[in-house]
C-alpha cells in the first residue's frame, strides 16, 4: 500500500518535470513550490501510515500478554476441540497403561512433576475429583514429566493420591506431544476422545466443580 503511494508520487513528479523544461519563466517559479508541497504531503502520509501500523501492532500485541490479569485470579483455561494425542506408557507402579481403553469416559490428563511446587497442592484435589466423579465416568491420568520416580511416588503417597494412575515420562516427550508448555498443566478429554479444555497452572476444587460436571453430562458421543 505504502509502496504504491510512493510509486504514484514518483510518477507524478516525473511527468511534471518534462513540461517544466520547455515551460516559461513563470511556470518554473511555481513548479518547485507545488512539487515541494506534494513531497511533504507524501512523506507525512507515508510516515503517518507507518506510525498507525506500528501503533496497531503495539496495541494488538499488548492484548496477547499470556501473563495478564486472569493469571493471578485462577488457572488460565482455554476451551478447545482437537483430537486427543495418544496416551500410553508405563505407570509409576510399573504397569502398562493405554488411555485408549478409557474411551467413552471423560479423561483428565494432568502433567506434573515432584519438583513442581504448585503440583503438590493440585494433586490432592485431582485425587478427590476421581473419587467424587469416578462413578459418573471421570478418569484422572497423570504424566510425570522429567522426574525421579522415587520422589514422584513419595509425593503421591504424601498427598494421599497413591491410586492416581501416572505415566512415567522421563524425557518429557509425552508432555510435549500433548502440547504442554510447563507444569502443572491439565487437559480434559471428553467422552468422544477430543481435548476440550486446556489449563495452565494448578486447578483446584472450585475449578473442577465448575468445569467437570458439564463434560460428564455431555453424552452426545459415546
Amino acid at each position, binding site marked *: 500500500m505504502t509502496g504504491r503511494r510512493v510509486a504514484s508520487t514518483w510518477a507524478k513528479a516525473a511527468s511534471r518535470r518534462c513540461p517544466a523544461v520547455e515551460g516559461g519563466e513563470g511556470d518554473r*517559479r511555481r513548479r518547485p513550490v507545488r512539487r515541494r508541497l506534494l513531497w511533504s504531503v507524501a512523506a507525512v502520509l507515508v510516515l503517518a501510515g507507518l506510525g498507525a501500523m506500528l501503533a496497531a501492532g503495539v*496495541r494488538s500485541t499488548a492484548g496477547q500478554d499470556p501473563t495478564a490479569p486472569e493469571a493471578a485470579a485462577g488457572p488460565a483455561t482455554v476451551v478447545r476441540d482437537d483430537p486427543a494425542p495418544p496416551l500410553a506408557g508405563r505407570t509409576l507402579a510399573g504397569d502398562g497403561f493405554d488411555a485408549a481403553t478409557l474411551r467413552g469416559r471423560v479423561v483428565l490428563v494432568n502433567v506434573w512433576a515432584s519438583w513442581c511446587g504448585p503440583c503438590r497442592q493440585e494433586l490432592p484435589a485431582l485425587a478427590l475429583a476421581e473419587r467424587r466423579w469416578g462413578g459418573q465416568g471421570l478418569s484422572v491420568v497423570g504424566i510425570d514429566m522429567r522426574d525421579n520416580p522415587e520422589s514422584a511416588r513419595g509425593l503421591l503417597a504424601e498427598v494421599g493420591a497413591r491410586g492416581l494412575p501416572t505415566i512415567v515420562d522421563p524425557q518429557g516427550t509425552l508432555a510435549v*506431544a500433548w502440547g504442554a508448555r510447563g507444569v502443572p498443566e491439565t487437559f480434559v478429554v471428553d467422552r468422544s476422545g477430543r481435548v476440550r479444555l486446556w489449563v495452565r497452572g494448578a486447578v483446584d476444587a472450585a475449578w473442577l466443580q465448575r468445569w467437570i460436571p458439564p463434560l460428564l453430562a455431555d453424552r452426545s458421543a459415546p
Partner: protein
Amino acid sequence: MRLRRLAALAVLALLLLAAGAAAWRSVRPQPETPATVAASLLCPSCQGETVAQSQSPMAAAMRDTIAEQLAAGRTGAQVRQWFVERYGPAVLAEPPPGGLGVVLWVVPGCVAAAALAFAIRARRRRAAPAARVTARTHPGEPRDGGRPAAAHGAGRVTARAHPGELREERFTARARPGGGGRRASRAWDAAAVGVVGLVAAVALASPSHRPQETPARPVADRAATLVTLARSLEDKGRYAEAAQIYRDALRERPDDRTTLRLAFTLLRSQRPAEAEKAVRRVLGNAPDDPNAVLLLGLAQRGQGSPAATATLRRFLTLAPDAPAAAEVRRMLRAD
C-alpha cells in the same frame, strides 16, 4: 579525483561482497541437526528464548523430542510442522513471511530507493552547470544537455568562463528562490514532522496497556506470595503468625478463599469470635458455601453458641459427601 572514485568503487564492491556473503550464509542449504531445529523453535514457557538456548525442563523435553523425531527419519520441516500443530505458529523463531511483517522488508527497500533517487537528482543538478558552460563556449551546439535545475554554483562557474555574463547569471539564481538547499531543508522538515507523528501515534497507542498492567501485577503477586507464606506457616503449626499474614494478604487483595483460610487458622489458634467475623464476610457473598457454613458452625461451637448445631446440620445438608462430613456427624452425635 580518479583515486577517490576508485576508492569509492572499491568500498562499494566490498560492501556488496559482504552483503552477498551474509545473504548466502543465511540461505545456503544446511543439514538439519537437532541443534539447528531447536534453534528455529521458541521455548513456549520462556520469554524470547529458543529451545536450543533455554534451560527449562520443557525446552529440554522439546530438544529430546526433536532428536527422537529426526532420528526416526523426519525432516526438519516436518518436525517444525509437528510443533506448529501443537503450539501454534508462534513457536517458530522465524515467522512465515506475510502479514504486517512485510513492512519490515518493504520499508528499508523504499528508503534505499528514495535515497538513490535523491542521489541521482543531486548528481544531475551538479552536472547541469558544466553542460551550460559548454553550451556557452560553443554557441553552435544544441542545448539539449542543459537542464534548468537550480544551482548556486552556476553563477561563479560561468562568470569565470565569460566575465561579461556575471550579472545575468546572478539574476537567474536570485529569480529562483528556494533552490536545492531550501528544498532539501523542507524535505527534512517534512520527514521530521512525520517522525514526530509516528512517535506520537505509538505513544498514544501504548498507554492503553501500560497503566493497567503496572499497578495490577505487583499487588496480585504480593498477595499470592503472602498467601503461600501463610500456608507454609500454617503447615508448621504457627497459626497465629499465619493468621496475621493472611490478614495482610487480604488487605492487598480481598478474596473469599483466603478469608476462609484466615477463619480456619483463627479457629486453630483458639480465636473463634474473630473466625466467625471473617466467615460472616464470606457468607455475605456466598450464603451457601459449604466450607463457610462448616467454619461458621465450628466457630459458633468454639464459643459455646447454641446456634452451632443448626449451622453444622445445614453444612451436612449442603455437602453430605464432603470429607469433613463424617467428622461433623460424629461431633453432633457426641453433643
